[in-house]
C-alpha cells in the first residue's frame, strides 16, 4: 500500500479541523463560566475566576457575595434565616443560591457539560 498525496491532505485537513475545534473549545473555557447576580431587575455578570467581593443592594439591605476560587457564595445578607449563606458555594453551571427576602439571586452560567451517568452510541 502506498501513501498517496490525497491521503496526506485528508489527514492534514482532519488534524487541522480537530486542532481548530480544540483551540476554540479549550481556550477561554475557564472564563466561559460566569456568575450572574440578579437583584431588582438588574443583572451583574462576573467571570467565575475573578477574585472579588460584590455588594448588592436589595429591598431590605445589602447582600455580600464573594466570588473566588472557582465559586461564588453569599457571605452575608440581611435576611432573618440566613438560608442563602448556608447554601454555601456554587461553582458549576446551573447551580444557584438566592436570598429570597432580599431578592438577590446568584447563579452560575456557562458551557460546561451536564454530567451524564452513561450513554452509548
Amino acid at each position, binding site marked *: *500500500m*502506498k*501513501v*498517496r*498525496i*490525497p*491521503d*496526506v*491532505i*485528508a*489527514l492534514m*485537513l*482532519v*488534524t487541522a*479541523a*480537530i486542532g481548530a*475545534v*480544540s483551540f*476554540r*473549545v*479549550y481556550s477561554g*473555557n475557564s472564563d466561559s463560566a460566569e456568575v450572574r447576580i440578579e437583584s431588582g431587575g438588574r443583572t451583574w455578570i462576573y467571570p467565575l475566576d475573578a477574585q472579588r467581593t460584590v455588594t448588592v443592594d436589595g429591598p431590605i439591605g445589602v447582600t455580600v457575595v464573594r466570588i473566588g476560587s472557582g465559586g461564588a457564595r453569599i457571605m452575608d445578607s440581611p435576611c432573618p434565616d440566613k438560608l442563602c449563606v448556608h447554601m454555601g458555594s456554587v461553582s458549576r453551571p446551573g447551580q444557584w443560591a438566592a436570598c429570597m427576602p432580599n431578592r438577590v439571586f446568584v447563579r452560575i452560567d456557562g*458551557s*460546561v*457539560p*451536564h454530567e*451524564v451517568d*452513561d*450513554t*452509548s*452510541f
Partner: protein
Amino acid sequence: MKSTTPLSRRLDRVALLGACCLFLSSIEYILPKPIPFLRIGIANLPILIALDLLSPPLVLLVVALKVAGQALLSGTLFSYVFLFSLVGSAASGLSMILLRTLFAKRMSLVGIGVLGAFASNSVQLILARFLIFGEGAWLIAPPFLALGTVSAAVLGFFAERFSETSRWVRAAREEG
C-alpha cells in the same frame, strides 16, 4: 461502477458483508469501553471493503444492515441512540462513496476512512449539540474526533491490506 454480474450475485456480497458487520458489531459490543462514547468502529470495515465491490446503492444497503445489526445487538433500536447511529453512518457512508467516486484509487482507504469517520462524528456532535448536551457538546468534540481519526486510520490501513491480499475480494473484483 457498472456491473454485469447478476444482481443476485451482488446481493450475496451485500449479505456477506452485512453479516460481517453484524459479527464485528458483536465484537465491538463485547469490548469494554473506558468512556461510553468512544468506539473503535470495527463494524465499518466491511463498508470500506464494499466501496470497491458494490455500486453506491448496494454500499448504502450494507450501511443500513450495519446500522440495523448494531441496533439489534445493543438493544437501542427504539432509542435516540439509533438516530445517532443512523445519521452518523449515513454521513460517513455517503461521504466515503463520494470520495471513492471523486478520487477513485488516488485516495487510499486510509484517507477515505478518516474523512468518513470525521463526517460521521461531526454530524453526531451536531446532533448531540441540539438534542442532548447543548453547548457543552463541544467539550467532548476534540477527544471524540481525535480518537475517531486514529481508529479510522488504523481500520483504513487494515482494509487496504485486506483488499490487497484477500482472494475473495480479488475474485469479486474480477467478477465485476
